[in-house]
């Protein structure tokens, strides 16, 4: 099984000049753990929910609740994005992609052809695949 069989095609992306607030809303709307950061179709980075948590004001902020959302809408993704994220090609064996995601604690892996983003492999899709593979297994093989 290869990455191309399990990746999402045309995943939502964010421009580095868009805001953290928008990135957070996109993650929530698409139920994703990470968003590729794309400039003119070229992948330049990745921003994930953990990055947004780190950018979030502390529990002891002097900002009021309303101000927090406002700040997040004003800070650009490029301030916190991860440059040079791990990425794979469409023909990468899925098992290697899974290994990479575990080793680097990634919730999503961008799939590229050259510099161009062509898909996104998400942890959720891999968990759904795991469930499907185990359910097709004959029950007698279970411990």
């Amino acid at each position, binding site marked *: 099984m290869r990455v191309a069989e399990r990746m999402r095609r045309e995943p939502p992306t964010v421009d580095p000049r868009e805001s953290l607030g928008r990135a957070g809303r996109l993650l929530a709307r698409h139920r994703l753990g990470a968003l590729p950061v794309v400039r003119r179709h070229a992948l330049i980075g990745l921003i994930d929910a953990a990055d947004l948590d780190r950018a979030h004001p502390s529990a*002891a902020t002097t900002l009021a609740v309303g101000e927090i959302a406002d700040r997040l809408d004003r800070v650009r993704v490029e*301030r916190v994005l991860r440059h040079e994220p791990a990425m794979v090609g469409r023909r990468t064996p899925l*098992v290697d992609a899974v290994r990479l995601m575990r080793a680097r604690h990634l919730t999503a892996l961008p799939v590229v052809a050259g510099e161009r983003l062509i898909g996104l492999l998400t942890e959720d899709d*891999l968990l759904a695949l*795991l469930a499907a593979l185990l359910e097709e297994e004959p029950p007698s093989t279970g411990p």
Partner: protein
Amino acid sequence: MKIKTLLTRPAITIGPATSIRDARALMRRRGIRHLPVLEHGRLVGMLAERGIDRADASSAPEIGVHDWLDPLADLVVADVMTRGPVALHPETSVAEAARLACDHRVDAFAVVDCDEVAGVVTRSDLLAVLGGLLEHRHPTGLGHVLAATSLRPGTRRALGEALRIAATAGAAVTALHVLPAASFVPGLEGATAEDVTRVERARRRVADEATAARAGRAQDVTCEVAEGTVAREIARRAEELDSDLIVVGAEARPGILGAFVETLADRLVRLAPCPVLAVPRSGARGAGR
């Protein structure tokens, strides 16, 4: 497979009154990102590294400037933990845990048996199971085989060979027949009723041929009909389907037809994104390539 098989070490837990700094130090020391929070031996919450990151000063300077210096200093686990964490019984299947994790976006489950916390199962643990399955049951040497069939007698062997190779490797198979592009009728656009019948008839013949080639084996074969320049269509479809191998029948007939088929294999080798296997027609000896 049950989630209890994923619990490899005694549960590392923490109390709600522990300082966040100590909790973070414990996580780093043990290389973990989730800690079940126990109060009087009962599970009351889950502390995640991400929760601590969220409570800590912002990584963005323009937001962090509004944070107190060292905002974690006075916090304890109870301030940051998620209350009412998702707890699973050790006998829960890994499949169910994987479904729950993706349906409810859970990062880590507490595994609880009779009010006792037996451990934590994380997304990373579940992915490790997937890694093992992919390695042993779905080797990636050959993921997809594209069998191009000309539907001529004698080339069925190529399809049979493709199915045999695919069955051995656990690969998926697509049987493809390319109809040479219908002759262009001026002033007429789109498919005519006749074209549709032609394609439908071809699809049925591909399906029949696949059934015959399967020879009783239970094997899924996707049957497709495309229209266009034969070699180019096959190569294009192989690219789209991410095929690892193209299998074609090599008709070693003398004369014009033989030369044409030879050209198809030759052209495919030039155009295809993957290796091409040309199977000699049934009965041919030493003449095929």
